[in-house]
């Protein structure tokens, strides 16, 4: 068990920064965190440089709370806004080239499986819609075809946020954004159907309106990926900068979008359902 690696040598303890000691004493390692504990425990991510009121930053915070065994988890990200905070979380984070998340995650998962056959190690890909549905599309699809056992979480802000608001494949048809001067000419890519067709074991779509649902969904996605097969979560995490949403209106926007076109979807294979019920007592 790698919990011992979280504690440093006792003689160093008096000299460690408070944040570090808090992580050891009040952090989520070695226990499963509950949403109700937020505020009384040390979270994996506290500070980040993402925009004020960014829905993606909030979603990432909830996701980190959901990780069942952070001491045995690796997050794989890529270029895009999300990595700005993910790279500051108290969890190993791998940041390669733009497009490579699902290839890198494949290698990490397989390498860890060879070295630690008795200890599950959860690998979680978290990247933007451009990173997963455009430039990284092939690697995402092929990791699903190969049934690689890790979770893929799309931070879908429907735009290239980090490069200043260009059209992505997940932008809605007709939307006028940069590089779509007369409005996007084709439909938002239907990644859910593609996941379905690829035999992904657990598929979910959600927005940020319900924190308990975020934690629940992400936890299931990670657990199913551990034993059953690839999982996919697609989260609407609006970009307030590029879609001009004032920070105080971010939740309102999410509620509206959820009602109009981004309703909660959850599908899983029989094997996934059985596993969650039997092993984890999750319905």
């Amino acid at each position: 068990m790698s919990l011992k690696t979280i504690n440093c040598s006792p003689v160093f303890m008096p000299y460690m920064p408070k944040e570090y000691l808090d992580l050891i004493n009040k952090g989520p390692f070695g226990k499963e965190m509950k949403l109700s504990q937020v505020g009384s425990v040390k979270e994996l991510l506290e500070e980040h440089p993402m925009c004020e009121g960014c829905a993606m930053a909030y979603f990432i915070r909830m996701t980190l709370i959901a990780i069942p065994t952070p001491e045995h988890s690796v997050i794989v990200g890529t270029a895009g806004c999300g990595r700005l905070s993910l790279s500051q979380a108290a969890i190993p984070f791998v940041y390669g080239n733009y497009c490579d998340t699902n290839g890198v995650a494949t290698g990490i998962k397989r390498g860890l499986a060879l070295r630690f056959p008795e200890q599950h190690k959860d690998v979680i890909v978290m990247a933007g819609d451009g990173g997963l549905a455009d430039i990284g599309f092939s690697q995402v699809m092929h990791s699903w075809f190969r049934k690689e056992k890790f979770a893929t979480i799309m931070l879908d802000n429907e735009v290239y946020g980090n490069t200043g608001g260009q059209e992505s494949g997940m932008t809605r048809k007709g939307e006028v954004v940069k590089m779509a001067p007369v409005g996007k000419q084709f439909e938002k890519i239907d990644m859910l159907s593609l996941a379905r067709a690829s035999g992904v074991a657990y598929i979910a779509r959600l927005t940020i309106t319900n924190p308990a649902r975020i934690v629940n969904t992400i936890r299931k996605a990670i657990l199913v990926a551990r034993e059953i097969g690839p999982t996919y979560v697609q989260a609407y995490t609006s970009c307030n900068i590029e879609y001009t949403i004032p920070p105080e209106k971010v939740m309102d926007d999410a509620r509206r979008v959820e009602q109009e076109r981004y309703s909660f979807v959850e599908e899983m294979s029989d094997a996934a359902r059985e596993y969650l019920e039997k092993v984890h007592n999750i319905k």
Partner: protein
Amino acid sequence: MEIVKPQQTVVTPEHLLFEAPRKRAYITGSEAASEAIKRANVDIAIAYPITPQSETMQRVGDLFGQGYVRDYYRAEDEVGAFSAISGASRTGVRCMTASSGPGLMRGLEVIASWPGHRVPVVFLIMCRVINAPLSIQPDNLELDYMLSTGNIVFHAENQQDFFDYTLAGFVISEKCEVTLPVAVAVDGFFVTHARGWVEMPSSDLKLPPRDCYREAVPMIDNENPPIRIARDAPIQKSNFISYQMHASWQQEIHAAQERSRRWIYKYLGGLIEVVNPGAETVIVASGSAVSQSREAVRQAEEMGHRIGLIKVKSLRPFPVEELREACKSAKRIIVPEFNCAGWLNRELRATLYNHSDAEIAPGPRVFGGITMPTELILQWLFDKTGNCR
């Protein structure tokens, strides 16, 4: 399918490379490479087909089927294969992959990021024409692109080198003070598909497994402190601290390459090999051009001329001091190459600038699949009257 693990004895790299008795076999370069992999204790090999590389990685697939390699799959493309290799190596397992020409070019973004991620990997390159027009013929222009990536790059002359350099590549790549990918290149077809004598230790022996906790960076395995590691620090912010970080990181890659020199001496017997030291007319070559040059040197000797030959084994790090020393008495140097750019010629000129008065001829060069007849090298050495040019 249940895979029965073959019984192999772990021996030291020194024993495997230098001491264990060897037997001779008449095999192709592709076979020689896979024979090396068989003895290399490889954990993960990832393949994507391209001529003339495919045969090697197919054979490595067979090794997986026989239990010599622990994990193997055919990737979606080169970017996928090289990315997965990069992920796997971060977890501490021994990794290898291979490619040729267009495949290498397709994956170049990933290849160029391996050194910065400090991932030990062995990457076999079976050189071929880069598109376009599309051609599968041998031509090693792609190595020009490899030179600035931070990868260590060896250029094997023949089947024997391909076997030895590949095994040595794993050992050097995983040295603590190196911790860099090692690319082992050969000229496609001329080496991969042609047979040559290769002396090999028994396949009952293999290298020790990768000892990942002795390397320069922590593994991504959640088993070593500190709890939080972002080895690939996103230092894209626009401030001087991030510029400094990036600059020092790049300098460190360069320094790690420098530190690999002593291991190249140990495991490859040096960065160069010199035939007829002190000669006034010298051939400098790498890869299969060396074999052609050896024959030219032999024929020149029959004509009563003593021609020097310097074989460059390591392109990165480049044998700067060694070449300056070995070219001390040279008056004229020719550089036979299998590419149109003349990258070895360019490297040599930069190396000898202000260190030699020798004339460096701009060739001979063949490319696009053309072979290099010995006569061509001789023409560049001698004028019509049979005197050295």
